[in-house]
Structure formats: structure tokens, C-alpha cells
């Protein structure tokens, strides 16, 4: 067998079901590659090779390997709680914590017979777009080790792009699946809000957080989506509806026929008069991808969504506000770090010291901002106003989807930037989410699919669809992927080889 880490999920399924290989071999191949590469990449925060091999052996023994996802290794962003397995959300404040329960999506993957390789690095509490805000170490982009892998799911993007895992789960609050997928040449999908359980996902911003797949191909992402999606009675915001037929849509899209599909190009996201801050190369690749869609039979038109320009300020009020409340439970009383409890300090002092030492600067900045936006006298002007802007953005989507079936834009305005370039400038960092925020605020599904290279670095096309029409995202993404030929990450493999 050639290098097992070069195979995508569909290829691994075939190799496993035909008996060409075993889950143990596939798992070992990935563990070996992690051992060789992760010292440089920094994609993982926790790997337990023995447990993974034990699990793989069980799946092999059960004879299930190759059926569905059984026997396929996966990586989970460290934001998902995993029973008995360290879970930190990229923060010092949870160092050493082993949760007594598992997230619903982690459980669903386990029940499907997947093998957990490890927990991937991330910006602390998912706050960031570069994974430099991890309390443990930065993650490097496999395409260029001096560049960021995107964030906050940068550990997952680096792991999958660098072939340290065939697929991974990320979470997306304002673009944290799509943007890292875009800058590492992966497919990353943020499902419709409420269509994938948030139970056991350490909350950043409850009304925005959503888990989703990151993979090297559209079909791989769909296969994972199908397993993790669907109603969960433990999550009150979980929609009780069948999972959209994403696998079928990915297969259909790969046929390359988009006849009759109406595609809207969002003017406000890199279109006429809204190009400031966008790399020219990014806009070129996106324009080429749109031309490919047209070539596949889609009707393309420009669509205006005037309120999208307010998505960034609205997001940077709503998310920090919810975060300031969600992160209040990290005060060192029931779990995790406690600092300064030497008998001389009262509880308020111990809580404050614990949070001072347990949280990094970006987390503190957002907690303070969110505390401010919710505080008496300011609520209406900030949080309340932001929630109203959210309504305007919803309306823009509804109006647009009256005329078109999907909306497209760049996923990230730029390619991956050099590590350290934006760390001292929060606003520059936040600008990375410009294109991904509208779908987050409206709760609609959006996928990022690779559409070529600029300056030798990956560019992603974002495809947004109406709520619960995730299948459209997969169909269009698969068509783009098919039109471009081989997955973009194959070119990374060629470069490395």
C-alpha cells in the first residue's frame, strides 16, 4: 500500500472494505506522520496513540471497518469535550481537565466507528483567526510554515491539509471553519445553525457557534456531516428535521451540471466598490470560479446585500457579549485552574487571579468588551442595536434568496498571512472574517471550497445557501472541485514530495 495518509476518506473506505488495509494500519500511518511532522506544525494539543490503536483494533475485530466511517481516523478540535480525554479549548484555564462526558458530535463519530487521533489546536476559546491565540503554541500552515493556518480551527485545518488526519471537526462562530479551510486548501462547511448539536461544544457565542466538517474533498466533508448532523434533544436550539441529503448533493455536484441554478455574487463582499482589503489574487481566483459555475450551466448575477457591511461591528458586539457570560463559569471553583488560594485571599480575589492567569489577552479583551456592551445604560446602544442589525442581515439574505439559489463570495479577503503580522492589531485580525460573518449572523449554511492558488497559497470560494439547504452548498462546491480537477491539497503533496 502506498502512503495511507495521502488517501481521502472515500479512498480509505474502499481500502478498508476491500481488506487492502486495516484501521490499525491507517491509524498507525497517521500517528507516524503526526510524530514526524507535528513538532513543526503544532496541529495537535493532545494525541493518545495507544488509545487510538486500541480503538482501531476493536473496529478491525468487529469487521465493520470500511462501512460508513468505521475505522477512519478523525481529529477533533479541542473545543469538543471528550470523556476522559483532556479538553482545553486552547486555554490554560482548562489545562489538565478531563471531562466526565462527551459532546454529542464526538459520541456520534465514535458510534460510527471512527478512531479518535487526538484533539487539535485552536485559538483560545475559539477567539481568533490565526490560531496564534492558543495558550499552548501557534499552529503553522502546511503550505508555508511561516504563515498562519487560519483560525480558530487552525489545528484542524493544518492537521487535514498536512495529512495528519483524513478529516477533522472544527467549529465556526464567525468563520472559524471556513477561513482556516480556505487558507489551507480544504473544504470546510458551517452547517445551518441548529442542524448540528452544540451539546458538549465549549461555548464561545451560543447563538452563533456551529460544528462542522473539514476535509480535503467535498464528498469527504459530506460523509462526516451526515454522521454528526441531526436532532439532539440535549440542545434546545437543535432543529428537529432530517439531515439534508448532503452526500447525494456532493455526488450530484461532482457531475458538473448546474443547469438552471441561480448564483448570486455578493457585491458587498469583494464586488464593485467593495474591494478594499481584498487581495487581487483572491478576487481573480474567485472570479474564475464563478466563471466555472457559469460554464457548468449556472445563471450568474450580481446581488446587493447592503447590510452586510454592518456584519463585522454587529458580530464583534454579539459574540463578545455572549462570550463574557459563557466564560463566567471558568472561575476556578468546580473544575480547571485555581490560582492564589493560599488562605490569605477571599473568593473574589481568587476568582480574579485565576481568570487573570488562566485567560490570554484576546479572551480578556473580548470579555471586557462584552461586559461593557451588556452593562446597564449601554445595552440598547450596543448589544440591542447589534441584534437589530442582525435582523437586517437576515432580511438581506431572504431578499437575495428570492432571486437566487446560492450566494457566493471569497471566503477570506486574503491568503494566509505571516505569523505575527496581525497579533497586535485586533481590528486587522477581525477583518479576516469580513466575508464569513453574514452567514454566521443569519444562521444560514456556508461552505468554503478551494478555487486555486494566489502567491502559491490557497484561495477559497464561499457558497452560502438558505437555512436547511446545506445540500446546495455541497452541490455547488462539488461542481467547483470537479471543474478544477484534483483536490487542491494534492498540489501540496506534490510540493512536499
Amino acid at each position, binding site marked *: 500500500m502506498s502512503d495511507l495518509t495521502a488517501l481521502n476518506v472515500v479512498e480509505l473506505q474502499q481500502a478498508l472494505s476491500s481488506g487492502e488495509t486495516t484501521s490499525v494500519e491507517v491509524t498507525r500511518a497517521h500517528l507516524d506522520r503526526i510524530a514526524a511532522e507535528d513538532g513543526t506544525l503544532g496541529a495537535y494539543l493532545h494525541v493518545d496513540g495507544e488509545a487510538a490503536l486500541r480503538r482501531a483494533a476493536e473496529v478491525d475485530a468487529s469487521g465493520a471497518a470500511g462501512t460508513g466511517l468505521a475505522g477512519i481516523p478523525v481529529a477533533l478540535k479541542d473545543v469538543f469535550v471528550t470523556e476522559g480525554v483532556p479538553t482545553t479549548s486552547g486555554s490554560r484555564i482548562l489545562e489538565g481537565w478531563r*471531562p*466526565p462526558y462527551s459532546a454529542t458530535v464526538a459520541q456520534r463519530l465514535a458510534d460510527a466507528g471512527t478512531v479518535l487521533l487526538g484533539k487539535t489546536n485552536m485559538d483560545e476559546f475559539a477567539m481568533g483567526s490565526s490560531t496564534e491565540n492558543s495558550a499552548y503554541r501557534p499552529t503553522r500552515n502546511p503550505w508555508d510554515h511561516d504563515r498562519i493556518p487560519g483560525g480558530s480551527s487552525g489545528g484542524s485545518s493544518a492537521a487535514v491539509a498536512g495529512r495528519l488526519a483524513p478529516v477533522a471537526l472544527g467549529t465556526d462562530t464567525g468563520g472559524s471553519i471556513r477561513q482556516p479551510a480556505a487558507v489551507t486548501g480544504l473544504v470546510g462547511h458551517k452547517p445551518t*445553525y*441548529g442542524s448540528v448539536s452544540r451539546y458538549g461544544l465549549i461555548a464561545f457565542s451560543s*447563538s*452563533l457557534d456551529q460544528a462542522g466538517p473539514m476535509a480535503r474533498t467535498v464528498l469527504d466533508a459530506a460523509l462526516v456531516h451526515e454522521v454528526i448532523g441531526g436532532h439532539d*434533544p440535549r440542545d*434546545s*436550539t437543535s*432543529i428537529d428535521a432530517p439531515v439534508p441529503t448532503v452526500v447525494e448533493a456532493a455526488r450530484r455536484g461532482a457531475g458538473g451540471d448546474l443547469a438552471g441554478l441561480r448564483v448570486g455574487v455578493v457585491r458587498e463582499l469583494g464586488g464593485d466598490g467593495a474591494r478594499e482589503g481584498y487581495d487581487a489574487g483572491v478576487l481573480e481566483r474567485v472570479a474564475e470560479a464563478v466563471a466555472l459555475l457559469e460554464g457548468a450551466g449556472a445563471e450568474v448575477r450580481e446581488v446587493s446585500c447592503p447590510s452586510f457591511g*454592518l456584519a463585522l*461591528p454587529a458580530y*464583534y*458586539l454579539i459574540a463578545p457579549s455572549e462570550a463574557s457570560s459563557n466564560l*463566567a463559569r471558568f472561575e*476556578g*471553583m*468546580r*473544575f*480547571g485552574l*485555581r490560582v492564589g*488560594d493560599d*488562605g490569605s*485571599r*477571599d*473568593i473574589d*480575589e481568587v*476568582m*480574579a*487571579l485565576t*481568570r*487573570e492567569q488562566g*485567560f490570554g*489577552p484576546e479572551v*480578556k*479583551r473580548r*470579555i*471586557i*468588551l462584552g*461586559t*461593557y*456592551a451588556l452593562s*446597564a*445604560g*449601554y*445595552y440598547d*446602544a450596543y448589544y*440591542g*442595536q*447589534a*441584534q*437589530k*442589525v*442582525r*435582523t*437586517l442581515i437576515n432580511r438581506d439574505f431572504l431578499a437575495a434568496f428570492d432571486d437566487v439559489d446560492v450566494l457566493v463570495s471569497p471566503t477570506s479577503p486574503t491568503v494566509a498571512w505571516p505569523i505575527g503580522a496581525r497579533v497586535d492589531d*485586533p*481590528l486587522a485580525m*477581525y477583518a479576516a472574517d469580513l466575508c464569513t460573518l453574514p452567514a454566521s449572523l443569519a*444562521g444560514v449554511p456556508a461552505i468554503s471550497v478551494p478555487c486555486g492558488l494566489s502567491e502559491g497559497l490557497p484561495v477559497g470560494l464561499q457558497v452560502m445557501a438558505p437555512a436547511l439547504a446545506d445540500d446546495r452548498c455541497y452541490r455547488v462546491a462539488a461542481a467547483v472541485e470537479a471543474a478544477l480537477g484534483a483536490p487542491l491539497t494534492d498540489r501540496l503533496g506534490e510540493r512536499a514530495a
Partner: protein
Amino acid sequence: MSTEPAPDTAAHPALDRQDIAHLARLARLAVTDEELDRFAGQLGAVLDAVAQVQRADVDDVAPTTHAVPLTNVLRADVTTPSLPRDVVLAGAPAAEDDRFRVPRILGEEA
């Protein structure tokens, strides 16, 4: 809520060191002096940017707090097993007498 005046939307919503210190106290963050200075500068710029939401014309617009239009999601009143106590306390920074041990409490809360 409080009697603090709502901020003038035209004015620069500056946050000085004292504001940051007050917010940090509310949020139980023991920020250092150096952090106070840095945050005051950075948050000033961020606030400037996010204050753009106040430009939106939203007079008759209802706020969106949930992206999903669900109501009345309820569970039946049925008990499910709790966690074993040793598991519960195993994760605690300090435990005593089968309870979570916490430092001395100064005030009484509501």
C-alpha cells in the same frame, strides 16, 4: 436598569483606564496596570469600529436573538442518572466533606 446616561451615538465611545478597571472587576479579571493601558488603547479602537452599528436605521426592526425560529422546546419531567460523586469531585480544584471547597466568601448575594 441603571441611571447612567446612554452614550451619545455621535461621540467617541472612549474607554479610559478607570472604565476598564470597573469592567474588569465586574468580570472578575485581575488586570495588571500594564494591561489596563494596553486594553484601553485597543478597546478604544475596537469600540470605535463596533459603534458603527449605531448608524443603522433600525427604528422598527425587531432584534434577532435566535437564528432558529423555534419555541416551546421542552423535556418531559423525568429523572436521568446523575454523575457519581467521586467523578464530580475528581475535577474540582479542592474538595472537602463531599463538597466543593471554595475560599472565604465576603458578601452575601441575592
